[in-house]
């Protein structure tokens, strides 16, 4: 076991897959010579050369279009979109082209590609460089959606995404880049569509994703020590496919569900989770389902404002206490 930062795990994960499969190529803005604006891809150019690791112009549609054309003709590209907010610039490629072309061609084409992107808040970058947009992707049939919360998952889920025959949006939470964690030695490959129970409890189930997992875990510790409330924390890891079995079995056991989402309220992934639980587990619930989200407003930049709108440990603790009366 080695300890890596989440940031280092990105390069390690890409390198693992490029080493294994010559069809894996990597492209994006500032990713090669500069090693990425978040320094997530340092050393890849030196290791794999300019044919496989390519700097692109600031052309998000071209980045994803090229990745798509390469994927449908035999390569397995990894494309970086620097900030997930910029997906809005190339959403046609994501939502109309990459997601739908397998279906529209009756399965004639495959799109084994990964779109990596830095997602989420925490750096006071304001409303166009801080969004959590994984729910946008979740709403489009044909896309798999992954959001790792630990360095080990960055490597394992990235490997699974690269090896997957379908397009995967891979959301790296930028507030996690500096966090550290143990990663397994040797090749590490995980599985898409499997949530993880990070903490087992009896009274309430917190379902979280990305940077919210650590906050949910911290909230759970406080609830335990301050109120004797025992919380389960489920790290979804993948939104599509969604591991509803893990969610349902944990909620069935605990009778309560609180989702913890960095995204704005309306149509956030937690709404889908809540609806599934309400439809399938209504009579096992002991309290109304609660969603903790950012408000339905753009993200502000100032330290105190950004902190104020994001789901904090305090907010999570408060809402959980309320569901327990």
């Amino acid at each position, binding site marked *: 076991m080695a300890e890596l930062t989440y940031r280092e795990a990105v390069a390690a994960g890409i390198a693992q897959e490029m080493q294994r499969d010559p069809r894996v190529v990597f492209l994006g803005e500032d990713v090669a010579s500069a090693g990425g604006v978040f320094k997530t891809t340092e050393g890849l150019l030196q290791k794999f050369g300019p044919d496989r690791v390519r700097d*692109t112009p600031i052309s998000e549609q*071209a980045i994803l279009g090229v990745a798509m*054309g390469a994927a*449908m003709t035999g390569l397995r590209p990894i494309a970086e979109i620097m900030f997930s907010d910029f997906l809005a610039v190339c959403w046609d490629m994501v939502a109309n082209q990459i997601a739908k072309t397998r279906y529209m061609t009756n399965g004639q084409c495959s799109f084994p590609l990964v779109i990596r992107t830095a997602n989420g808040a925490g750096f006071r970058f304001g409303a166009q460089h801080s969004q959590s947009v994984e729910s946008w992707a979740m709403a489009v049939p044909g896309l798999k959606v992954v959001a790792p919360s630990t360095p080990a998952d960055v490597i394992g889920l990235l490997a699974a995404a690269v090896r997957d025959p379908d397009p995967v949006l891979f959301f790296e939470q930028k507030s996690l880049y500096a966090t550290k964690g143990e990663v397994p030695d040797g090749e590490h490959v995980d599985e898409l569509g499997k949530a993880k129970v990070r903490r087992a409890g009896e009274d309430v189930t917190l379902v979280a994703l990305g940077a919210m997992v650590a906050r949910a875990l911290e909230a759970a510790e406080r609830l335990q020590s301050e109120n004797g409330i025992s919380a389960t924390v489920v790290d979804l890891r993948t939104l599509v496919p969604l591991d509803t079995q893990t969610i349902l079995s944990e909620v069935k056991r605990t009778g309560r569900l609180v989702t913890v989402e960095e995204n704005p309220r309306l149509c956030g992934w937690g709404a889908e989770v809540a609806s599934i639980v309400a439809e399938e587990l209504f009579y096992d619930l002991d309290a109304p389902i609660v969603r903790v989200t950012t408000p339905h407003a753009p993200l502000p930049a100032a330290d105190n404002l950004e902190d104020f709108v994001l789901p904090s440990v305090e907010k999570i603790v408060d809402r959980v206490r309320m569901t327990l009366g």
Partner: protein
Amino acid sequence: MTNPQASKPKAEAPGPKEDIAEAIAPATRLKLFRSQLEIRYLEKRAYDLFLQNLVKGTSHLALGQEAVAAGFGVAMRSDDYTFCTYRGHAHTLVRGVSMAGILGELMGRDCGLTRGKGGSMHLTSVEHGVMGSYAIVGAHLPIAAGAAWSARYRGTEQVAVCFFGDGATNIGAFHEALNLAAVWKLPVVFVCENNLYMEYTSIETVTAVAHPAADRASAYGLEPVLIDGNDVEAVYRIALQALAKARRGEGPSLIEAQTYRHGGHSRADPAKYRPRKEVDAWLARDPIPSYRQRLLALGFSESSLAEIEQEAQRAVDQATEQAKASPVPPTDIAGRDVWASGGSEWRN
């Protein structure tokens, strides 16, 4: 406003000499003739079937623009890639795709190329190198560049040919793709079919330059190439050159082929916005009768041409019957092929 440099057809970086200067072989000429006729008859049939309410949804015909698809189709290698637009029946057919597969798709039948899941605007036949028809204007230019990148990376010497309209030259994806393809020297040929109109708006009223593609070429370090898109041999020759250049590793080409659609933009459009004189002038330049005359002047016999016409018509008739006889697709395929697993499940 005209750009004298661009208005002169320009043949750059010629390929093997014989491609350019030498006479086109008789058999090739007949292929060019046949290919245009097949497109013409197929598109006319698509229109008739629409009038009979057998073609649903929308359809965008290439009547009048046959020479561009035909010239490229004959010049391309069988493993080259085609990327085309919603106006793509012609570009699909010229790669050897079955007429019944095309008509069946337009009619929503099980024998359709994508069993009715794509429809008229998304004809695709990967086994023929037809990598899709794209209905978001300009989207396929970067995708074609990606296929070209992949071909070079894999060392296959395949070329991606990407067809689009004049209207597509004003969308960002056009410029992003041209720049990236030029910087990366990709084996891709961008073919702009300038039919003077977007949907209902004349391209010149919304474009800063006279030749929407050719006048933009120099911005990407490419030679401006402007050709008569109604002259199938001109198209064929330029196609050979551009394909050879791409295969030699010398990068992309951007070709503007001037042409005209005989009908409206789509089935719903009577095209009243076009001046009668303009329409008449272009109808007089119909690519097919003029090529027929040229072939006769070159010594091809009337009977050999008539025979090709009959064969093409028969092929369309047969395909029509085949498509009409095909059942509608089973509804269970509506939920298939979202994923490579064949299914559409999003949860466990």
